[in-house]
């Protein structure tokens, strides 16, 4: 089916068009359209995946009529397709489950705008996954920045404004770095498409001339994307943003957008620079250390939170830490593990944010744990979903999180010495820490509710939202049980990358 090779482009196009169209629609219609678009994208990506699995090697897809090295390209590989499918699936579910309580955060007339931004973000994510061209990537980074900032800011209270400002500044700073990096890279190679870039970088490395600028480029771009994806020392903006944005936005931000950046980084490492060079420049060790410290610090900070949503936000800092630890190992296995962790976390985190919101809203919008007692009984679905999500992030067997940890650990084994020790012990300790705050929360969800608090009459969750939550829960469990094929795709995809 050759038609399928256009699907990535179609899916992007659908999002763009959708974003234009929704701007003129009524809120309800806009909402519906956005969800539909997400669904379409999901289907398209699924087909793309099916198509890509049939491919021997990734194939480029020319946009416009300039052949390489001028025009800009998409690239259809298994990994891209897999990530696209996973992320769009999560996105679809998130929209399905999250939209109905948006009115609580967004004034009716702003909803259309919000939909536009969602579409844009979706589009940007897809481009970042598929693109084969650094500058296109940059442009969509910026679009994503703006879109995601809008996603945060649409909720009009002081906290969100401040958070959004922080978020904006950090992100712009980061994109500045990225842009500078890209332009310097262009300066020393004269290319923007990834294949030719890769070739000339390899040439540079062989000749050994321009090595310093190359190192600077790597540092700049890595730093930029790391900031955007809230890697540990640069995480300061994340918790507030996630905590105060509307829950659906937080789900999209921390679950999906961050992943897109990281995926771009992986692409950059593999296709542009080449993993060996990265290892040579020790950037990986830096990432590794940051990742490990992120795993631990994130959890520690999360434990110290008194507000459930901030806790969840901090936990994503630690989860991102896992991913960077995987990257930082600088080995095939490590990156593969990181990719799987990305999927697992995307699934679990979005569902956590959403179910948290449910639980909080049945507890009278009070986020302190004390008020959450018994929330698991007041809203059973959300309770169960939260429990499963929490288990996944703690790394309880039969959930995605456990497999991710297992992969990370096995990936860590070959690298002997202190690194192995660090990986294993960090994993063990952070598991324990995660358990401490997540399961504590779960327990308090099922404790007997204090009598003196009067809870609002529990509004019933719309059937579709509940269904979506359950589906995403099943997705998490599926990642735990059927991880075999997925890992195989990831490994094959990485092979295709280089």
């Amino acid at each position, binding site marked *: 089916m050759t038609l399928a090779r256009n699907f990535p482009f179609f899916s992007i196009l659908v999002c763009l068009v959708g974003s234009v169209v929704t701007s003129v629609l009524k809120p309800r219609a806009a909402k519906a359209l956005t969800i539909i678009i997400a669904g379409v994208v999901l289907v398209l990506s699924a087909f793309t995946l099916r198509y890509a699995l049939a491919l021997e090697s990734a194939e480029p897809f020319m946009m416009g009529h300039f052949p390489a090295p001028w025009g800009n390209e998409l690239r259809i590989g298994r990994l891209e397709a897999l990530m696209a499918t996973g992320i769009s699936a999560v996105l679809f579910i998130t929209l399905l489950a999250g939209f109905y309580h948006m009115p609580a955060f967004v004034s009716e007339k702003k909803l259309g705008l919000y939909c536009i931004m969602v579409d844009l973000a979706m589009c940007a994510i897809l481009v970042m996954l598929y693109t084969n061209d650094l500058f296109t990537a940059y442009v969509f980074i910026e679009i994503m920045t703006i879109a995601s900032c809008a996603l945060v800011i649409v909720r009009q209270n002081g906290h969100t404004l*401040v958070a959004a400002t922080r978020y904006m500044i950090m992100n712009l700073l980061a994109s500045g770095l990225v842009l500078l990096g890209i332009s310097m890279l262009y300066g020393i190679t004269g290319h923007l498409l990834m294949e030719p870039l890769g070739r000339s970088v390899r040439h540079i490395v062989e000749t050994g001339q321009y090595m310093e600028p190359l190192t600077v480029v790597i540092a700049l771009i890595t730093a930029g994307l790391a900031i955007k994806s809230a890697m540990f020392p640069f995480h300061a903006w994340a918790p507030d943003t996630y905590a105060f944005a509307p829950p659906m936005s937080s789900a999209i931000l921390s679950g999906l957008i961050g992943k897109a950046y990281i995926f771009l980084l992986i692409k950059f490492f593999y296709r542009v620079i080449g993993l060996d060079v990265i290892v040579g420049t020790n950037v990986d060790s830096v990432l590794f250390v940051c990742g490990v410290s992120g795993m631990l610090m994130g959890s520690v900070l999360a434990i110290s939170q008194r507000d459930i949503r901030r806790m969840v936000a901090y936990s994503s800092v630690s989860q991102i830490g896992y991913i960077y630890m995987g990257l930082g190992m600088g080995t095939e296995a490590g990156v593969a593990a990181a990719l799987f962790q990305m999927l697992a976390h995307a699934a679990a985190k979005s569902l956590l944010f959403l179910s948290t919101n449910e639980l909080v809203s049945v507890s009278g919008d009070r986020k302190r744990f004390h008020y959450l007692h018994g929330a698991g009984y007041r809203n059973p679905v959300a309770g169960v979903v939260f429990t499963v999500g929490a288990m996944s992030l703690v790394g309880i067997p039969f959930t995605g999180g456990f497999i991710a940890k297992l992969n990370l650990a096995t990936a860590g084994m070959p690298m002997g010495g202190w690194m192995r020790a660090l990986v294993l012990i960090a994993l063990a300790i952070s598991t324990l820490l995660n358990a401490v705050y997540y399961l504590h929360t779960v327990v308090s969800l099922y404790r007997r509710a204090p009598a003196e608090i009067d809870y609002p009459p529990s509004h019933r969750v719309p059937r579709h939202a509940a269904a979506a939550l359950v589906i995403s829960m099943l997705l998490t469990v599926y990642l735990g049980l059927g991880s075999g094929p997925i890992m195989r795709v990831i490994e094959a995809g990485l092979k295709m990358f280089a």
Partner: protein
Amino acid sequence: MWQALYDNLEQTVAVILFGIGFTILLLQRNLIRKIIGLNIMSTATYLFLASMGYIQGRKAPIVTDGVTDLAAYINPIPAGLVLTGIVVSVSFTGIMLALTVRLYRRYRTLDIDQIALLAKGEDMA
């Protein structure tokens, strides 16, 4: 050393500008100044890019009086990048300003830390 710096003057200037912008963005607490810093930073990048694309003694890549020989023009791609970049920066400057206005309306100050404090205060209330 100085010679080297002088030879690629633009890059040097660009880097210096970038540094200035960066520091302002990080260290200034006034939102407006932060935005300005942001712009300086991006401008620096554009300068850098443009200087990359510029080739001594050629014309901008706009076809005039029918000369279509590639060798007559400078490399068009960086120019294109710069244009895109400018558009982007304009848009986010806009958003930042809008944000700033909102914040100012709400808290009557532009000092980001102060605003953060006030926001916390609200939360307590």
